[in-house]
């Protein structure tokens, strides 16, 4: 359902972020995208969610051709995915509860549905007692869990996580990965970009390795190998 077809991204005509990238992710898979810092993982994700356009190639998500979407069509497309960013990207003027609820509000869901679902999801990520906190009143781990709750509450087909544990300690890292696995078990496709070798080795799932913008390895039960 996610297809990268000969995708290249070049910034300012000399900085090559991605070169001729080809891969495919099927529904229900749990795929890790790995590589050194600067290998192109975040770029691939930005292209996938339409934040930027590829220099060459095509990107498919379900029936959408992402690189051809117009600005006005992007919001509707983004409601099919849940994204977890490395820098959390929570709305600072909203509480944890409101941040999670926002994902449902943009989809136009009625108030009573929101009032029912949000507490459930906050409970699932273990933040029921922090619902009324603003993001500056939450720790890094808690913020990331709010971000995950927000990413999954509207039951997207795919969850894309860009270095979700980059700012976390090992304990919370483990928790987050377990949470993502649980979500995957429930049927959601997960695309995880990370350079954390512990996670990769722990998961024993499919790993796509990038190096200097190119796909150098794509293994079903991947391990993190220092290039």
């Amino acid at each position, binding site marked *: 359902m996610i297809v990268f077809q000969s995708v290249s991204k070049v910034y300012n005509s000399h900085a090559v972020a991605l070169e001729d990238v080809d891969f495919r992710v099927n529904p229900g898979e749990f795929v890790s995208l790995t590589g050194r810092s600067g290998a192109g993982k975040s770029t691939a994700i930005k292209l996938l969610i339409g*934040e*930027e356009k590829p220099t060459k190639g095509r990107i498919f998500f379900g029936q959408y051709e992402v690189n051809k979407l117009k600005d006005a069509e992007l919001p*509707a497309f983004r409601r099919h995915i849940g994204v977890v960013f490395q820098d959390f990207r929570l709305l600072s*003027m909203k509480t944890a509860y409101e941040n999670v609820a926002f994902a449902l509000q*943009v989809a136009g869901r*009625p108030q009573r549905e929101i009032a029912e679902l949000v507490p459930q999801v906050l409970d699932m990520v273990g933040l029921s007692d922090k619902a009324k906190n603003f993001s500056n009143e939450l720790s890094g781990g808690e913020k990331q869990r709010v971000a995950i709750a927000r990413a999954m509450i509207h039951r997207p087909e795919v969850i894309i996580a860009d270095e979700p544990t980059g700012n976390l300690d090992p304990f919370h890292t483990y928790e987050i990965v377990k949470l993502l696995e649980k979500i995957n078990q429930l049927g959601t496709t997960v695309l995880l970009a990370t350079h954390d070798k512990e996670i990769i080795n722990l998961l024993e799932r499919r790993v796509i390795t990038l190096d200097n913008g190119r796909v150098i390895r794509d293994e079903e039960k991947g391990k993190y190998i220092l290039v």
Partner: protein
Amino acid sequence: MFTVFSRIIHFGFKNFWRNGWLSMVTVLIMVLALLVFSGLVLFGVVTDKAAASVQDKIDISVYFKTNTPEDQILDIKQSLEGLSEVKSVEYISRDRALQIFQASHQSDVVISQAINELNTNPLEASLNIKAKRPDQYALIADYLDTPNMTSFIDSVSYAKNQVVIDRLASIVNTVTRGGLVLTIFLALLSGLVIFNTIRLAIYSNREEISIMRAVGASNSLVRGPYMVAGIIAGVLAAVISLIVAAPLVYFVSPYLKVFIPGLDIFQYFYTHVFTLLLYQLAFGVLVGIFSSFVAVRRYLRN
């Protein structure tokens, strides 16, 4: 549809409140801009009144020969009133003229005695003509210059005062027109100040806007609350600026009265306070909405 709408309003209020300091500063700047705006409105009232009071002082007096019968004078009065340029014509009979003269020279013993010495009334009957506009007096003077008039007329004061009248006319004209230009210019200026203040406020929110878009919010859900906040700011600014203006106007009013008699600016202010509030609301809210709409647009593109 209704859900989206009520959410936009809800977010608008919440954002305005939670962005506390920023919202307050925006409103404050809008208050200053609106004070300028209402100052302009009041300034317009003052110039109008000043111009009118100057114009009122200008007139032509036509003095008739003492042997002219009153009917003749009244006929001429009627024909003058028929002219479209004439605002009013006042008839002062010879007796009335004497009364006025005596009253104004009551304290002067010599003159009072001299009047008593005379057997006949030396004063002439006159018609005091006011035109609708100062530049029309030349026309009226021309009208009086025809032979059937001049046989009865002894003198017309216009000839002596012509230079002054013309000069006053052009001053009144310039002030009125200059006042209008100034008003438009300063109104534009205060509008631009409000526009840029709101633009800066929304600039400082650009991160939030991009996050909302990343989560999939539609353009209206992103833009709407900011426009609501713009409306709230406009309303608050309008009300606050009038509350601030009231004591200022009250303070200035007696000073203005000295310069332009008949002008009670404070009275004008409180009798027209709702009209002024309406102008302010219209200006503040319209500029607020427009500014928010335009300012957010930049961050809705990728």
